[in-house]
């Protein structure tokens, strides 16, 4: 009797498959790591289930089934149980190879986790706060400009001129800082999105591997292969596993490229702005202006 005559075991779909919506929703590191753990558990469960079901098939093989697939030869006095034991040992060896391979995979996944364990949710949140800071600064600019306009109507002389000049310099600095906060908000969103994308890619790759393992064990672990120690199923797993490693590597590379892009924002370009003389100092109030507007006695032309 050939292996094909036995009913193939039914394999359940890997558990923990994410929907598109769920992929969008995991934004905290805890969520992501939980999904990774779930996917890893699904892979291990899939392998164990596959090995177990093949083992069950081995245990159901009769003497002539075993003769048929070449495990034992008639006339040598070997029992079916002994033949099943030989096949079982081979199966156990294959299982061990698979789990060894999986251990290597977890190392790759862990490296990706270590590199990408940021927090998109908090980055988004911080970006929102930067936007509020931008609005605060814009509000300050608006108020200062409004007051300057009002004062221009109701205050004449050198005092107003000096105050207007001091106000202009302060407003210019606030304007630059508001722009920077806006750019920072965009960067937070971009960095958060890049992290989320990398996380999704890795989880997707893990889920694909889980699915692949289940289907390949189901179709690849035929009894003849087990007997000959054929590494077909393992090769299939390795191929799938390489996809996972590649996905992890690509996720890290992509995010590095993204970091180069978002990092290209010229954070410290304040120096090139006339508003920040020297680049690292808020414009001080000109002492001449200050003495002029602070002394009502010198407000005249």
């Amino acid at each position, binding site marked *: 009797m050939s292996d094909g005559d036995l009913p193939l075991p039914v394999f359940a779909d890997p558990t923990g498959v994410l929907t598109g919506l769920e992929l969008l929703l995991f934004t905290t590191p805890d969520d992501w790591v939980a999904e990774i753990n779930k996917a890893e558990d699904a892979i291990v469960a899939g392998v164990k289930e596959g090995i177990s079901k093949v083992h069950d098939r081995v245990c159901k093989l009769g003497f002539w089934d075993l003769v048929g697939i070449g495990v034992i030869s008639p006339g040598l006095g070997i029992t079916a149980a002994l033949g099943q034991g030989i096949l079982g040992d081979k199966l156990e060896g294959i299982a061990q190879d698979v789990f060894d391979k999986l251990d290597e995979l977890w190392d790759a996944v862990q490296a990706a986790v270590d*590199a990408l364990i940021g927090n998109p949710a908090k980055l988004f949140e*911080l970006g929102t706060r930067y936007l509020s800071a931008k609005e605060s*600064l814009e509000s300050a600019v608006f108020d200062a400009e409004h007051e300057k306009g009002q004062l221009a109507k109701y205050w004449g002389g050198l005092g107003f001129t000096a105050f207007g000049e001091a106000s202009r310099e302060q407003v210019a*600095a606030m304007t630059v800082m508001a722009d920077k906060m806006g750019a*920072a908000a965009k960067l937070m969103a971009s960095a958060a999105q890049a992290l989320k994308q990398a996380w999704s890619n890795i989880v997707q790759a893990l889920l694909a591997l889980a699915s692949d393992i289940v289907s390949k064990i189901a179709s690849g672990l035929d009894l003849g292969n087990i007997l000959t120690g054929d590494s077909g199923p393992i090769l299939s797993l390795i191929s799938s596993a390489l996809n996972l490693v590649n996905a992890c590597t690509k996720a890290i590379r992509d995010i590095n490229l*993204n970091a180069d892009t978002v990092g290209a924002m010229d954070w410290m370009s304040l120096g090139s702005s006339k508003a920040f003389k020297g680049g690292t100092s808020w414009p001080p109030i000109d002492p001449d202006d200050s003495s002029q507007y602070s002394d009502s006695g010198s407000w005249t032309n």
Partner: protein
Amino acid sequence: MNQAVEATGGSTIPLSGKQTMWADTTQLYSSAYTWEWTITYDLVAAMAVAQQGTTAHGLFGLAMSSVADKHQDFMELADRLLSAGMDNAAEMGKAIRLAADDFVRTDDGAASDADRVRRAVEQP
């Protein structure tokens, strides 16, 4: 009340001949308040956010540590700059308030005509 420097209450009607400089102290006080409190408060709010940014390095992950470094450097700078901006705003507001006080005080109680002339300007 010293008519020479009397607050005009916002009137922008040009005075004729040799006139006095005028100022609406109500508006001066309003502007002083805006700078000393409203604008300062806005800068404090922005500064508080920048301070939050200085502790956000870990949110980026190791793979984006270079961005995290730049971000942190900037937020530390922004925190410092905004603090200086806040001080300046408060100082400007306070200076105007005190000067307006002085303006009003000397307006009402100028010791001599010379004090009044000191603030006189020629109107075209």
